Each structure stands twice: as structure tokens, then as C-alpha cells.
């Protein structure tokens, strides 16, 4: 390529950039989709403030020294111990992070909330983490965001200390993923003093331990939220479910049998239940991304410690390359899960920090920001839960027969892990959200996605401002080409299906997978690229390279699947030829095995996940 052409390409991009000023998209949900790598930053573990590092260390202290030693007693339901630990967590401030100061909380940023659950996860007790997270997330947030002054005073002060536990009851026998199909009803009594609730909610975490329950019922045809005290007449707690995993957490059915709820306990407005139900779930998702990333991290340690001691063929099984292969991939997955989750909290915090805390609509705007990050929250949930699932599966395999025996830890990790792909919206539902949000942001022009589609059709691989000898220059091209391919796919899908795309799951699922893979590449690259030179960056090099390699492969595979499905028969050959041509032009042939070898070597040096 001649010098002239290069300059020309740069200029085109400059002009385009001025037009769009893409860097101003920082803090907008989905900005990663359109911001070229040279205009994109992420928040990551390396960016913790001094104070955040201290929050992390006190959470870890408490987890390791207080909870972990009694871990065994939480393998089955142990109400007294769970409540005792819960209360202590409250005393330390871990339950009040999202609660405003005037109600006894601290109202810290979303990243800090994430850090606390991240480092508390060092207790290696998923049951307790579920108990705690259900309280601090879906239990508390609805009242923080929608509660009136009296409700906040009455409930939040006790939620912050852990004196009261909260729960969130949305799911019903006939309303799971289709949450708004709930059949629970409420009507105002003749005296106008109480709403009378009838119905049942199933699989409710903390249900039998909580003093307070946030629930939802139809008043006429208006889906409405209520705060129900355990002491309300007609509130009945069912038996504990027998579960596959997280057996130390409480999960029950709650029955409302002419349950008398005072009128002042309606949460938000009549008919606002749907918004309350969904908005509360977004925040839970990226936090689940964090706790599952942490789980993936501890699974590595657990498998490594075992493997090191286990000898076969007169050597430690860690010396076998097939196990090294597993360990290397476990590290990469953990890196990916952490990267996307903290990128999400960081972006949300960036936008929230620009709000005026004293304005009346502060919480409304905060929620809008969180809602705006729906796509990131779902990505964090999927990447985290899948990373942990795959690590847990590899973990069992590394343990061999002992992985199947309850005396060893791998089996429990395997059972406890499974729920993460189901609750907080099944991963399928989260893929629907990713695809749907991508489509919506394009159509409503919330992001300049259509402009980018137009631009990328002209120039599939625009030159960026990185220097030519950037150590990841081929990866940069891979990611930018992937962006073009992703936008191309969206474009074709919109042309073919229009708004109906959201109902075309055969096409929407691969599209969502492409977005997930792309986000992991983009955010992983940004995390790496912004690091100062040094040991940490060196260690991350192979990890980020392998991560890009593997996600690019999945992305290509999904495109191979999509194109024949959505293009006319006569077109398929040409479209695939031109896509393959562009991919081949990259001459991207990394030595993936060499990368995995180095990753594993580094892991063995540290004896645990080594990127934070």
C-alpha cells in the first residue's frame, strides 16, 4: 500500500471522526459497538482508586477469615449462621452501598458495589453470596429507586444494617421468563385502607428469612409493585425447595392468601410494576457477572492445588499438556468475565458521576443510565456465567474421579454454578435483550450505528491512529474487521426482517453471540492497551491475544451460520467469498498453542489466577 493511500485513508477517518465525535460517546450504553479502538477506553480492575482497593481488602479479609472457615456449615440450610454472617456484613457496611446516607447507607458508586461482592466471593461460598446479593440487589434497589420518603425511612435504614433482610418475588408458576404474565391480583378493600393480594410467587431467594418482600400484582389491568411485610395477615411462607446447588440459601414459594397490605405500601405508582420489575434486574446482572468471574477465579485455584499434588505416571498431572490446555483457557475466560463486568460498572459510574445528586430526578436519571447499559449488563451476565460454567466443568475433569466425589470441592462448585445461567433472566432471555437492544439502538439512532454501517460499507477496515508497529497491530485489524462484519450482519438482518428481527430467534441468537464475542475483544484490547508498560501488561499480553483469537473464531463461525440463512441462495457464495477474502487479507495466523503454553506457564508460576 503506497504512502499516498494511507494518508488519504487517515484523512477520511479524521473527517468522519469530526462528524461524529465518537469519543463523546463515553459512558453511553453500547458505545463499544461503534467507538473505534483508538477512541475507546474501559474501566478495569487496574483502575481501582486507593479507597476502592481498601474496600476490596476489607471485604476479602472478612470473607477469608470469617466466612470461609465456617463454609462447611453452609453446605446445607443453616438459618442462624447465615443470618449471623449477614448481620456482620451489615455492620461492616457491605449491605448499604447503594443506600443513601440519610438512611444509614453510603451511596457509593456501582463499581464499589461490584468490588465488594467480588472480594466477598473469596469466601468461596456461593450460597452466602446469593443470599447477600439478592438482598443488596433486587431486595433493596426497588425501594431506593421508587420508594417514597416514609418507605425509605422505614425499610432502608434496617436493610443497611442487616437487621432486616429483603427479597424480591416476581416469578410465578405461569410467569417465569415471561415475567409480566403474573396472575397475582390485588384490589383495594372497601375501607380503602388495604390492598388485598391473592396469588403465589415461586423460587424466591431469601423468601423464608426475609422480613420484607418486594412483589408484583395486577390491580385491575395495572401491573403494580408492593412492599409486603412478613407480618401482613395472609402472607404464607412455603416449604424450602430441595435444590441442585446453592443448598445453603433459602428458596421458597410465597403465598398471598387474601394478604392485607396497607395502601401506603404500594411501591411507585399504580401500573408502574413492569418498569420496577425490569429495572431492578439490570443491576443484578452485571453484579452476577462479577460474582461468577470471581467464582471462575477460585475454581482455577482449587483445580490447580489439587492437580499439583495428584501424581500419575510418576509426575504431577499439571505436567500433562492436555491439562495445561484446560488451565490456560480457564485463565482466559476469567480474564474475559472480569473485563466485561468492570467495563460495565465503570461506564455506568462515568455517566452517573455527571448527574446532580441533589436534583429531584436523580434516581430517575440514574436508572435511565443503568437501563441504557442493558446490553452490557446482559453481556456481563452471559460471559460471567458461561466462564464459570466452563471452568467448573474443566475443574471436575482435572479432578478426575475425585471430581465426582462429594468429599472433594469440585462437585459442589459444579452444582452451585448451574443456577447462574438460569436466574436473573436466563441466558436465552439475555441474548434476546442483547439482540433487541442492538436493533433498537440502531433504529432509534440512540447510537450512530447506521452512520457506522454506512461508513463501514465504504471502508471495511479504516486506518486508526495507532502506530504501525503496535504490538497488537494484527489484533487491532481483527477487531475492526469484526466490527465491520457485525455491522454488516445487522444491516442485512434489518433489511430482511425490519423490526420483526426481535422475533427471529434463529437469526437473533447468532447475532447476540457475535455482539458478545465482539465486546470481549474490544474491551479486552482496551483494558490491555491502556496499561502502563510493566510486568502486569507483559503477563496480560498472551491472555488478551488468545482471547481475541478464540472470540474471532466463534464470531466467524456464527457468520458462517447466519449468511446462508439470511441471504438469497444466489447471493450466498459471493457474500461468503468477499467476507473470507477480507479475513484472509488480514493474514492473521497467531500461534494459539504457543500462547496457551505461556499462559499456563505464568499460571504455574503464580499458583493462581494472576491478573487481579
Amino acid at each position: 500500500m503506497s504512502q499516498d493511500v494511507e494518508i488519504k485513508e487517515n484523512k477520511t477517518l479524521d473527517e468522519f471522526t469530526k462528524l461524529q465525535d465518537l469519543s463523546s460517546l463515553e459512558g453511553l450504553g453500547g458505545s463499544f459497538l461503534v467507538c473505534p479502538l483508538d477512541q475507546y477506553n474501559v474501566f478495569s480492575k487496574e483502575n481501582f482508586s486507593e479507597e476502592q482497593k481498601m474496600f476490596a481488602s476489607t471485604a476479602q479479609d472478612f470473607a477469608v477469615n470469617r466466612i470461609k472457615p465456617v463454609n462447611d456449615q453452609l453446605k446445607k440450610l443453616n438459618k442462624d449462621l447465615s443470618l449471623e454472617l449477614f448481620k456482620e456484613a451489615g455492620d461492616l457496611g457491605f449491605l448499604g452501598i447503594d443506600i443513601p446516607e440519610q438512611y444509614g447507607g453510603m451511596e457509593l458508586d456501582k463499581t464499589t458495589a461490584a468490588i465488594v461482592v467480588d472480594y466477598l466471593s473469596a469466601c468461596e461460598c456461593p450460597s452466602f453470596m446469593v443470599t447477600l446479593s439478592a438482598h443488596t440487589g433486587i431486595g433493596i434497589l426497588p425501594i431506593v429507586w421508587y420508594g417514597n420518603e416514609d418507605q425509605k425511612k422505614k425499610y432502608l435504614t434496617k436493610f443497611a444494617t442487616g437487621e432486616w433482610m429483603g427479597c424480591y418475588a416476581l416469578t410465578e408458576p405461569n410467569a417465569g421468563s415471561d415475567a409480566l404474565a403474573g396472575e397475582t391480583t390485588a384490589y383495594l378493600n372497601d375501607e380503602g385502607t388495604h390492598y388485598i393480594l391473592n396469588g403465589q410467587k415461586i423460587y424466591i431467594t431469601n423468601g423464608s428469612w426475609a422480613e420484607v418482600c418486594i412483589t408484583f400484582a395486577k390491580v385491575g389491568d395495572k401491573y403494580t409493585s408492593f412492599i409486603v411485610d412478613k407480618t401482613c395477615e395472609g402472607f404464607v411462607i412455603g416449604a424450602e425447595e430441595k435444590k441442585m446447588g446453592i443448598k445453603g440459601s433459602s428458596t421458597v414459594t410465597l403465598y398471598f392468601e387474601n394478604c392485607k397490605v396497607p395502601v401506603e405500601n404500594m411501591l411507585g405508582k399504580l401500573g408502574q410494576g413492569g418498569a420496577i420489575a425490569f429495572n431492578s434486574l439490570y443491576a443484578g446482572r452485571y453484579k452476577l457477572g462479577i460474582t461468577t468471574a470471581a467464582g471462575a477465579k477460585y475454581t482455577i485455584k482449587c483445580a490447580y492445588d489439587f492437580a499439583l499434588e495428584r501424581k500419575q505416571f510418576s509426575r504431577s498431572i499439571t505436567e500433562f499438556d492436555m491439562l495445561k490446555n484446560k488451565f490456560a483457557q480457564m485463565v482466559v475466560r476469567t480474564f474475559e468475565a472480569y473485563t466485561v463486568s468492570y467495563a460495565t460498572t465503570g461506564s455506568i459510574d462515568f455517566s452517573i458521576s455527571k448527574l446532580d445528586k441533589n436534583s429531584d430526578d436523580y434516581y430517575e436519571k440514574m436508572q435511565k443510565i443503568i437501563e441504557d447499559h442493558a446490553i452490557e449488563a446482559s453481556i456481563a451476565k452471559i460471559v460471567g456465567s458461561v466462564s464459570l460454567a466452563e471452568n467448573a466443568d474443566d475443574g471436575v475433569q482435572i479432578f478426575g474421579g475425585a471430581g465426582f466425589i462429594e468429599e472433594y470441592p469440585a462437585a459442589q462448585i459444579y452444582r452451585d454454578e448451574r443456577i447462574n445461567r438460569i436466574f436473573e433472566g436466563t441466558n436465552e432471555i439475555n441474548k434476546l435483550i442483547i439482540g433487541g437492544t442492538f436493533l433498537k439502538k440502531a433504529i432509534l439512532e440512540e447510537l450512530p450505528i447506521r452512520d457506522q454501517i454506512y461508513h463501514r460499507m465504504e471502508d471495511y477496515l479504516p486506518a486508526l491512529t495507532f502506530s504501525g508497529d503496535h504490538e497488537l497491530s494484527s489484533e487491532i485489524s481483527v477487531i475492526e474487521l469484526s466490527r465491520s462484519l457485525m455491522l454488516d450482519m445487522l444491516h442485512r438482518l434489518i433489511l430482511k426482517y425490519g423490526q420483526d428481527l426481535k422475533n427471529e430467534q434463529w437469526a437473533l441468537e447468532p447475532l447476540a453471540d457475535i455482539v458478545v464475542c465482539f465486546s470481549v475483544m474490544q474491551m479486552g484490547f482496551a483494558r490491555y492497551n491502556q496499561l502502563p508498560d510493566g510486568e502486569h501488561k507483559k503477563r496480560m499480553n498472551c491472555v488478551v491475544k488468545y482471547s481475541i483469537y478464540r472470540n474471532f473464531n466463534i464470531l466467524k463461525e456464527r457468520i458462517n451460520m447466519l449468511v446462508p440463512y439470511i441471504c438469497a441462495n444466489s447471493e450466498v457464495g459471493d457474500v461468503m467469498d468477499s467476507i473470507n477474502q477480507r479475513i484472509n487479507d488480514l493474514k492473521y495466523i497467531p500461534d494459539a498453542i504457543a500462547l496457551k503454553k505461556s499462559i499456563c506457564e505464568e499460571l504455574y508460576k503464580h499458583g493462581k489466577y494472576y491478573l487481579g
Partner: protein
Amino acid sequence: MKICVLMKQVASEDSPLSISNNIIDKASLNLVTNEPDSYALEEALLIKEKTNGEVTICTLGPESSQQVIKDGLAKGADKAIHIICDNTETMSSLDIAKIITKKIQNENFDLIFSGLQSNDYGFAQLGIIISELLDYSNACLVMGTEINENKLKIKKELENGWFQWSELKLPASLSIQSGINQPRYATLKGIMSVKNKPVDKIDFSELGLSLNAGYTIDEISIPQKSKQTQMIEGEVDDIVSQLTDILKNKIKVS
């Protein structure tokens, strides 16, 4: 009651150790608060809460020792003194005691607490020397404290599971036995209060002391962990008498 707690930053137990030219590579160490010091801090905080007192943390060490101070302030100490010094590991306990004494002698602390020992060099001398330099009463291996109207009663650990209660005059310097209390965790509120608490920072060279360790370090090495096996050979009677000799006189089985 004004209490000073001496605290130190040390390498964590799981830090990778690499030694070259008799110098421990500090860059690779994972630095944490010396664990025995956290019992001293906890004891001080308990007394503070009972007597409406004030707790000052004092540490001597490099810039990184800020971490120790912040941890302590987050747990409830009121203020801190940081004497900055990059190479305390070549100093003797006496030198360190002199530096600290020079800095705190006019603070009129009623109590000075130190941990039992530091987990890195393990001299266990500092508290004793400081009490000598400041002319404070002293007790080591303190298992419990009781304070009543400026009277200090302490429980000391003796040999063979014996304890001793004694009364000390104030001011006093005590080294606190590990495990005598349950050190608290920093609360999030505590952590957030750190930035508003005063830290008096001074470079140790400003104290104008001339120091002389009185010894030099010839060699630093990592202890050998290997087991030793001794083969006893000879006739059965020989073996038996050698073995009984070893059991009786070397291993001292009683």
C-alpha cells in the same frame, strides 16, 4: 488516655522470596500489616472505646507503609505518624527505637503498644528498648489489660501455661501477645474516614540522629527445609544402645 501503637509493614507469608547479593528483592514482595501488630491495635482501640481515649499509629518505613497507616486509621485509629525511611532492614532494634523515641518523646503518650514481634526479622525488642529510652514501665507477652482510673493491670504470659497479673505505673510500654483479642475488620465508613484523618509525615533524616547498628549482615539465606535421616548400623545390641542414647540424650524423650 493517649495510646501510641507501633505498626510495621512486612512481607506476607506467601510472598515469593528471592535473594541476591544478600539483599531480599523487595519489588516481588506482597506487603501487608504485620499481623501481631493488629492485636496491639485492637487492644488500643478497645481501651480507647472504654476511656474516651485517642489512638495514634506510628510506623517507620518506606512510602509503601502508608498502607499500614490507612488500614489502622480505617479500623478506628485517630491519627498517625509516618517516619519515612527506605532501608530499615539494615538497622538494629536499638537504632529503630532511637528514631521512634526521638519523634514521639514529646507526645506524652500514656501507653505505647507494640505487637509481639515483627513477622519479618522477629527481633521482639522494640517495645522493651523504647520503654527504657523513655523511662516507661514495661511488660511483654501481655495477655490482657484492665484500666481503672489511670491504674493499669496487666495479665502476662509466663512459662508452662502460667499467667501473672501485675500492676504497672503509667506511662507504660507493652508488647501484646498475639491472639488476645479478635482484631476487627475495617468498615466501609471507616475506610472513607481515612482521608480526613491527620498523618504527620517526616523523613527520618530530619531527626538528625547518627546511627550505628553495631553489627553487619554477612549472609541472608532461605532456611533449608530438607529432612535428615541418620542410619544406625551394627549388631542388634549396638543399634539398640545407640538408639536409646539418641532418644534419651538428643531428642530428650521424657
